[in-house]
């Protein structure tokens, strides 16, 4: 719809967002990029930020701990996003069913998301605790295990524990998005399909999914980016242990930045995270691109 008025409105509508961006973001983002090329630590902060070119990046690529963190983060992101998307869709389908108890079911499914991550982490700590945790207690009663499982301190289980807590917290988020996506599907199409003899599964995949595509793509994109940047949950549960095996890239970044005060190196790590996240976004965006050129 080509229309001058529309075009003007389109540009004007961008202004508030651009103001927000200019005020709050431009300087901090550029500052971080600049610092990544500097030697800037709290210990030598009085000497200011010394420009050292790509030295931080060279150090980063030679840093084993960074590669370990990167591998962990990639693996975790892949598994958690797939799990959360599938389970989210499943929940959305449950929430979409008609029925008297729907409101209650919906509310209950959304509860995990309402709990602040700080509390959620503490809660899972309490559940996964080796001696007084309810999970080990139940497993022993049910006869599944004879020895207490070291959920958070055994490298075999730590990954799983973090995955469980993350999935638990995020499935409501995904299901809500998927549900609203389901609601945008025109039911007349579904009716037509049903009359033509398609069963539920077929109409779901052939009709509903294509209609929901833009929303699902954005949801999965954001979820991937957020998962890649996981920090709070791991911090409270395992703090990157045991022996650094559950350290995500962001945990490593913040450890360098805050705990060690090495802000130049931390900034370089942050830029790495930024670039990878941007690549993820661009990949997904290409999927949405076709819809953008209306």
């Amino acid at each position: 719809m080509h229309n001058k008025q529309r075009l003007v409105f389109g540009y004007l509508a961008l202004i508030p967002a651009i103001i927000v961006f200019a005020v709050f973001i431009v300087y901090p983002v550029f500052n971080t990029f600049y610092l990544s090329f500097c030697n800037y630590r709290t210990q030598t902060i009085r000497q200011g930020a010394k420009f050292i070119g790509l030295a931080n990046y060279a150090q980063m690529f030679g840093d084993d701990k960074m590669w370990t963190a990167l591998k962990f983060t990639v693996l975790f992101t892949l598994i958690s996003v797939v799990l959360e998307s599938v389970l989210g869709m499943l929940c959305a389908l449950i929430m979409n069913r008609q029925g008297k108890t729907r409101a209650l079911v919906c509310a209950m499914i959304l509860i995990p998301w309402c709990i602040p991550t700080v509390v959620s982490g503490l809660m899972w700590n309490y559940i996964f605790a080796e001696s007084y945790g309810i999970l080990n207690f139940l497993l022993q009663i049910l006869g599944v295990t004879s020895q207490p499982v070291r959920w958070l301190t055994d490298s075999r289980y730590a990954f799983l524990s973090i995955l469980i807590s993350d999935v638990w917290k995020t499935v409501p988020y995904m299901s809500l998005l998927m549900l609203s996506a389901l609601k945008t599907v025109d039911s007349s199409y579904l009716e037509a399909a049903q009359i033509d003899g398609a069963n539920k599964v077929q109409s779901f995949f052939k009709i509903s999914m294509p209609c929901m595509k833009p929303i699902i793509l954005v949801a999965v994109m954001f979820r991937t980016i957020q998962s890649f940047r996981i920090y709070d949950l791991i911090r409270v549960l395992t703090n990157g242990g045991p022996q650094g095996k559950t350290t995500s890239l962001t945990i490593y970044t913040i450890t360098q930045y805050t705990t060690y005060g090495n802000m130049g190196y931390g900034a370089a790590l942050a830029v790495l995270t930024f670039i990878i996240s941007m690549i993820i976004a661009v990949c997904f965006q290409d999927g949405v691109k076709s819809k953008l050129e209306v």
Partner: protein
Amino acid sequence: MQAVQRKPGRSVGGQIGLGTFTVLFVLLIVAPFVWLLLAAFKSGKELYSMPVQILPSAFNLQNFKDAFSVQPLLKYVVNSIVVAVVSTVMIIIIASLVSFSLARTQIKGKRLVLLMLLSISLLPPVTILNPIYLMMSNLKMMNTTLGLALVLVAIELPTAAWYLMSFFQTIPDALEESAMIDGANVVTIFCRILMPLVAPGVFTVSIMTFIAVWNNYLFASVLNPSKKARTVTVALTMYAGETTTPWNTIAAAAIVACVPLVIMVLICQRRIVSGMVDGAVKG
């Protein structure tokens, strides 16, 4: 628009099976929260007893009383509500405008705007903390609910904008075209036609944004450290000492902190789930 009728071939057994699955699934999801709830009623001893004691010996409210007496929890809840409401309203307004512009107009440079918006979310917040702190400090907006709300607008805006944009994309062009033929200008189309159509999307994004702002920890703790402006999420970490963690009090405080969120979700989910959109889209 009525619900699609169940096909006659579907057996009662199938429905019971599905129902049971749903019940089990939902119970599994709610179980950890129930455990938290029980912890809020237990005394320090019962919390860590071995073997694990499932039910508290008495449902006394001591932990809740402690939660309110150790810290002014109610004030914190109010602060959180104010910050979250102001942020969410501002974000929805700005994001709706941006996403309409990106999804339904022919402006140039869309990709740039999208990526610009996204760049905010891609850096670990701690790296942009210091410049923002400096700015807030210079503006004398530290320890104010408004200041925090504004900062969180910047932080949570991208997600809201991207999602709303995808909701806008689901509306067929035919609707707008017919409205334009009827002589409506773009502002009217935006306010009277498009916004109501993406209403479930707006409610969804509102809940998401509200919860994200409510749960924000880093900026809330650094920008609003004083008691008068503290938010409840930050306050939850104040109960622990250096070497002791009164888990039962924290659990009680956490329950209190969740209540407004759960209420909000209950109210809003009806608007989303009730399917206001059905039928309207066909035109």
